């Protein structure tokens, strides 16, 4: 844990606020506000699917999922 999920699907119509840079990233700490807003626009089911898709894209051996 600890990294941003990839930005595929990031909304294109969410304007950055005055405290953000043009790309929607909060200048103080690097948080991608547009990505947060996109996640908040999803249902819980959809958010879990986003995470599962990310996890499924990582080979199982690299995180021990295939340990027997």
């Amino acid at each position, binding site marked *: 844990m600890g990294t941003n*999920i990839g930005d595929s699907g990031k909304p294109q119509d969410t304007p950055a606020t005055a405290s953000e840079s043009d790309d929607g990233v909060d200048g103080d700490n690097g948080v991608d506000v547009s990505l947060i807003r996109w996640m*908040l626009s999803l249902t*819980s089911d959809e958010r*879990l699917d986003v995470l599962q898709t990310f996890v499924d894209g990582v080979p199982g051996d690299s995180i021990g999922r295939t340990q027997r």
Partner: protein
Amino acid sequence: MCFRLSSTASPEIRLAVPSASTGFRGAIECLCAHDVAFIVVGGVAAVLNGAPISTFDLDIVHERTPENVTRLMVALAALDARYRDPAGRVLRPRADAIAGDGHHLLLTNCGPLDVLGRIGDGEGFEALQVETRLHRLGERDVPVLNLSGLIRTKKAAGRAKDLAVLPILMRTLAESNG
């Protein structure tokens, strides 16, 4: 609905209920199918609350009553749970250990599952319930620690991996309140 607010029900040994789903959803469905009282915490809870972070394991805090531990043990058997052992040994969780307040880092047929007796500043199931909200996942309402609870427990834990996500959690909380 799989959220149990009390542990008054008598212990009930059930047949293992296999889940048609896999991954996080499969593990959650299995726990719910076995009527386990638990709260989703950690990275999956953060994502369900709208925080764009990644995680590979499902973290839960379970009610540690004898009845619920019995139900959880049946669910863990259905999930083929064993400890994540670097040496590759197959070590199964025991009920007396699951009834304690330690952390059990398991591997299941639905992926890594961390069964946690207490988190943060030593808070268990009962203490965390006040900061828990139900999230609709498929046909089930699943109890999930809210963003305020996640932020507070991660600050209390104080580990680097917990502190690293605090800016994202705090901004997500601000955005969700705004």
